[in-house]
């Protein structure tokens, strides 16, 4: 097998990111969207760590730690919002939450 380099990790990150994007764009369920968002976060983190490892510089890892922290905050608020939506609409289908429709 050929040796694994930075590009492998970056490509995997790109795939993961696009899958996450696809989920965000298509899933109706708000929680599924949140799940997909986490995928995108992970893709970013994967890139950061890979860069940090292959271009030796710990800052990438530090940044990844920050990203995880921010993701935790995001998920907290996201879930709270979802629960709030659920309480108001009795469902969490994003394509029916269109009160902002013009």
């Amino acid at each position, binding site marked *: 097998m050929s040796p694994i380099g930075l590009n492998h990790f970056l490509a995997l990150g790109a795939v993961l990111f696009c899958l996450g*994007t696809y989920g*965000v*764009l298509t899933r109706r369920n708000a929680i599924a969207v949140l799940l997909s968002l986490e995928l995108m976060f992970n893709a970013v983190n994967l890139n950061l760590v890979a860069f940090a490892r292959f271009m030796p510089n710990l800052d990438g890892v530090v940044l990844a730690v920050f990203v995880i922290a921010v993701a935790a905050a995001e998920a907290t608020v996201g879930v709270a919002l979802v629960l709030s939506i659920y309480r108001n609409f009795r469902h969490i289908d994003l394509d029916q*939450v269109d009160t*902002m*429709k013009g």
Partner: protein
Amino acid sequence: MHEQVAAAALEGAAANVWLVPLLPFLAFLIISFLTRPWGRVSAAVSILALTGSLGVSAQVFWQRFTQDAPPMQVAVPWITLAPDHPLGTIELGLLVDNLSAMMLLMVCFVGLCIQIYSTAYIQTEIAHFPTQGSASMSRFFGWMSLFTFSMLGLVLSHNLLEIYIFWELVGLCSYLLIGFWYFKHSAAEAGKKAFVVTRFGDLGFLMGILMLGVALKGFDFLGLSQKFTQGIPEGLTAGFVALAAVLIFCGAIGKSAQFPLHVWLPDAMEGPTPVSALIHAATMVAAGVYLVARLFPVFHPAGHAGEAALLVAWIGGITAFLAATIAVVQNDIKRVLAYSTISQLGFMMAGLGVGAYTAGSFHLITHAFFKSLLFLGSGAVIVACHSNDLWRMGGLRRHMPFTWFAFLMGCLALAGVPPLAGFWSKDEILGYVYAAPGGMALFLVLTFSAFLTAFYVTRMYFLAFEGPYRGAEKAPADLAGPVPPLSLPAPFPTSQALDVAPEWTEEMATSSQEDLPAACRGAGMEHVPHGLHAPKEVSPWMWGPLLVLALFAVFLGFAGVPTGVGLGLPNFFEGFIHLSGEGHPHEFHWTPMLLSVVVALAGIALGAGLFAGNPERGERRLRSGLRLVWPFLQQKWYLDHLWARALAGTMYAGALTMAWIEANLVDRAVFGLAGSVRSWGDWLRSEHTGKVQHYALMLLLALVLLAVGIGMVEPGFFTSRQFVINLLEGGR
């Protein structure tokens, strides 16, 4: 004579001159924010502040009087333009010279007298409005303080732009104080009218300021005066200077109520009487005169009267005559005084126009004292009689001895009876006009005005103070009562701001006040039932200041006795207020002086003859004697009507045109535009689904398009080494 007058820095007592306007301003702030609920405290604050100002002004005046110092000024940068801008830095500053020092003293002193008087007076007015309490008193004194601040700032202004600020501020205060009883329809209208009419003049003023300042690359008075001492400055034509001067004079026309913008001043009598005394007799209306005096070299480049000066002179003359004629037929004591004020301001203007810098300024000062005295006296009379109407007064001499004495002194001063103050100053103007080349026609006009002045003053005095007290009886129907308002033809809208019906009628009052509590209706004091008891002398707080002012009305004239009279008095005033460019002190002529004495005495004699015995009969005889011009005068030369018809008519026609343009051109364009935007919006709205994922999809689409676009424009953008390096190392 023409050497550079170096502006010195403020020193000595003048170094404190900034306190003079600051103290009233602080008083205004304190009253507005702290002592509002306690009217008497507010009054005390205001008076204390003004006393402080007076003290400093007196020190400054004394310093200027005893030392022969050049003008002193201090300035700080206000607007810093671009470094290479020709106008450089526009500054805010204080200018202290003899003229402003004297004005400071006058404003502070008269203001103080009036404020002390007001403490008692304003309570009598407040008593008519049960809903108004102590806060009204605070409001009054707060605004008075603000006005005083503005006026003192105006006097101390260092350049044209600064004076314009304060010019507008005094205008604002005037508006506020005229409409002090804002729930009175007439008062609110009068305030509006004053504000709007003076705005016409101020428009010209601003244009003149900009013309002059931009052309001469500077706004400060000393610099401007400097440039004009040698004549018209290089690069400017006489026509340009004349036009600028005339435009600046427009401001003075508005503020000083000169023909043809004088129409607001009589209406301004709706304000409380101390306001009339302070603003519309002594200080603000004099600001126009002060402005012309400040810019005297601009009107008289190199000491010679320019075209603008001629205009100033004739406007002044016309105003003096016109107002004097109208004053003859007025029945409202305050209106008589208002027209008299206009007339006297005309005298000042005429004097300044022919080059009588000293005389004009002198008349300004003396007039401030005796006219504020007269106004305050009229206020006292009104308080005593509960009426403005001369035909409801009479015989007050016996009931109000102090007021009577002070008022009489004021009348004599105004009538120009020697040796009272008004005589000396008015006479000096007449002397100048007489001596001026080509001034004979103007001299005659002014002399006739002086005769009329003496006559209407006498009429007013006799109606108010002599004969029997008529307050209890009903006034003769044909003599008293307001003039019916002019009914306009149908197509004219009753434009409130330009309303021609300045006479406040009962119908107007009641119709506009139905929403007020019953107790507030009939706000005019003539409607307050007053019973049959005789008028009583007012409180010492009111007649005290009157006597002080009377003292000045009698003796102030001796400060400016012409040296030629031979009284052995030096001409203090001329020694103090003179222009460096004013060449020869004018020669003294006995002819105009004697003529003016004769004229004044003749006027008094005629007035006394008509009104001493039976005023009603005298009035009827007067009317029959003047029957040809009586309606003309009664309608104030139809000037208000002219304004209403010409101006309102023109404006109405213009408005119709504009309405047509609006409806057919502008609206179509605008609505068309709006419609197209709306249809675009309707089309775009279908994209606004409210679904967050749809938006995210659009975002992604934009991102992809952007990336593709960048990739097409610059193929190596995302893969270039430098991009990556920048990306990675940018943060290090």
